[in-house]
């Protein structure tokens, strides 16, 4: 009986709470090597590979943000492409006004966060599917409004100014570094965020919303914060997207395909884990490269796999690996370890 077991643990009095079984030192040194390699990549890898890496980082940013939103806070948005588009267009706007596009990145992030705040007051009136479709309608409206502004090129598009004074090599390196640094910051910030108090609130809401509300958790304000952060993050993805593909068009920046990709990548990799979206992005890019001569088949296959995963393996591939091998690289939750197990591990 479960009753008996938990009482026994209580009586021994040696329960330890810890985050992971892998020593933080190993994780840390691995991370340092990886960061060093990825920072040097544009100088040692061919340009085509570097460009794939850039697209990969952009997807990692989006997927990480979508995972924060849906996997941790339970908000299934299908309108995050709206903030990708707004981030791209904010960058364009500041560049037209004479700001260096790289300097415009943080400004675009702030702009998206600021736009997201009033949006929450509308969409937070809704739950579940209503919420999802409303976010999509807002993204669609944002695209239509942006497309009717002549200064930003209207429906036909506009080149991002302010990049011509750089040599092609310089531009390529700087763009790569900007994309990589933004991706790194987004992942690290999400990790720290989930280990903070906010992460605890999200975990308690995920387990039982009513209980955590009555226990005094600030559920709505936490959700609002997450929505704004995810909007800002997707805006960052849009900003680096604008610099890496500097012809900016509403149909491309606000493409619903971004929503599809971030959703599939998070689903397949594993919702509710930091590693899942990154793993999902890797799988996505491998598949895309393998099937690059086959048109849209990579998306058909990927979508089918995502549906299958959603129904039969909802914790994703990372969840499957973690359950099988019992480890985490970037643990945000806690594991309760009974006294005997602690002694075993210490030995």
């Amino acid at each position, binding site marked *: 009986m479960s009753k008996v077991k938990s009482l026994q643990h209580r009586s021994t009095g040696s329960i330890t709470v810890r985050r992971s079984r892998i020593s933080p030192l190993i994780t840390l040194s691995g991370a340092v090597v990886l960061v060093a390699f990825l920072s040097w990549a544009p100088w040692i890898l061919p340009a085509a590979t570097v460009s794939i890496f850039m697209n990969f980082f952009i997807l990692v940013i989006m997927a990480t943000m979508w995972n924060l939103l*849906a996997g941790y806070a*339970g908000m*299934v948005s*299908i309108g995050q492409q709206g903030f990708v588009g707004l981030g791209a267009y904010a960058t364009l706007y500041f560049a037209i006004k004479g700001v260096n596009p790289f300097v415009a990145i943080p400004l675009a992030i702030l702009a998206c966060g600021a736009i997201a705040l009033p949006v929450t007051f*509308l969409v937070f*009136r*809704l*739950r*579940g*599917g*209503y919420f*999802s*479709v*409303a976010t*999509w*309608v*807002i993204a*669609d*409206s944002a695209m*239509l*409004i942006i*497309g*009717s502004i002549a200064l930003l090129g209207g*429906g036909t598009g506009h080149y991002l100014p302010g990049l011509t004074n750089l040599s092609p090599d310089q531009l390529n390196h700087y763009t790569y570094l900007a994309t990589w640094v933004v991706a790194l910051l987004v992942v690290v910030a999400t990790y720290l965020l989930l280990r903070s108090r906010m992460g605890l609130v999200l975990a308690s809401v995920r387990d039982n919303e009513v209980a955590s509300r009555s226990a005094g958790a600030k559920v709505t304000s936490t959700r609002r914060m997450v929505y704004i952060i995810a909007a800002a993050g997707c805006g960052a993805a849009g900003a680096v997207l604008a610099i890496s593909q500097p012809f900016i068009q509403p149909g491309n920046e606000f493409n*619903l395909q971004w929503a*599809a990709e971030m*959703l*599939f990548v998070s*689903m397949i990799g594993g919702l509710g884990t930091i590693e899942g979206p990154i793993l999902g992005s890797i799988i996505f890019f491998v598949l895309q490269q393998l099937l690059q001569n086959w*048109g*849209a*088949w990579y*998306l*058909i296959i990927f*979508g*089918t796999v*995502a*549906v299958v995963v*959603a*129904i039969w393996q*909802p914790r994703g591939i990372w969840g499957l690996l973690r359950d099988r091998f019992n480890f985490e690289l970037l643990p945000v939750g806690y594991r309760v370890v009974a006294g005997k197990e602690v002694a075993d591990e210490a030995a």
Partner: protein
Amino acid sequence: MSWVNALVQGAMIGGFYALFACGLSLMFGVMKVINLAHGDMAVVAGYTAVFLAPKLHVAGVWSFIVVVPLFALVGYVLQRTLLQKSIDRDPFTTLLVTFGLSVVIENLLLQIYSANGQSVNIGSLISKSWQVSSTLYISYVSLVVLAVAVLMLGALQLFLSKTGTGRQIRAVSDDREAAQLCGANYRHLFGVAAAIAFGTVALAGISFGIMTQFAPTSGGVNLLFAFETVVIGGIGSVWGTLIGGILLGMAQQIGAHINPAYQILAGNALFLLVLAVRPQGLFGKKTALS
């Protein structure tokens, strides 16, 4: 175009939106599922009609006699398998699964048919219209589509209020567990509701193909309009759906009258306004939101 003309044309197209929306509304009301692949199913129906018509040696429009029952069957089977499986998990999963289906269907159609537009052949009726006054014309096609929509909604209303199965479907949507305790097999009833939803969306898809050209990517916009219609009219009200469609059509035509670029935006604005002021919709019950 005069303002009166804009309003009349908007109202005419509203019937079509209602036809599109009633299946979405039914599935949400009964199963609490928002089928994000709803618009794509309509497009698939349009392609099926175009594909089948020459094989059946009829004008495209008559293929609905085969396509509608076929889609009802597809709806029942899909509900009893994939959709039921995801409902058994949680609402979150149904959103992911139907969105996944939507993307897969759209890209499959792109692979098979390319991005070129198609339309359903209705013969000589397409160019004829009824002149109401010197400035106001109403095309026969939009009249036929409006009539089909009103007939369809009327039949749905009769089915739900007068038949035993309709009553059970309403019971299940009120309280699934209590309906089980009355001997209702809710999985079968979900299947019936999905069959109706898919049948009506097939009819809507063919109507769409009669009125205008469709392409593999038309599904998204269709879903958007259907959803806006449902929200404006309110979940669970058959005639509310018709009013919702008409209001959406009018808003879009008024927007287009001001500036062609504002057509969809005006519809979105009305939708967001209703959400902000009366989220249960004009004719809906508040309970539909929780």
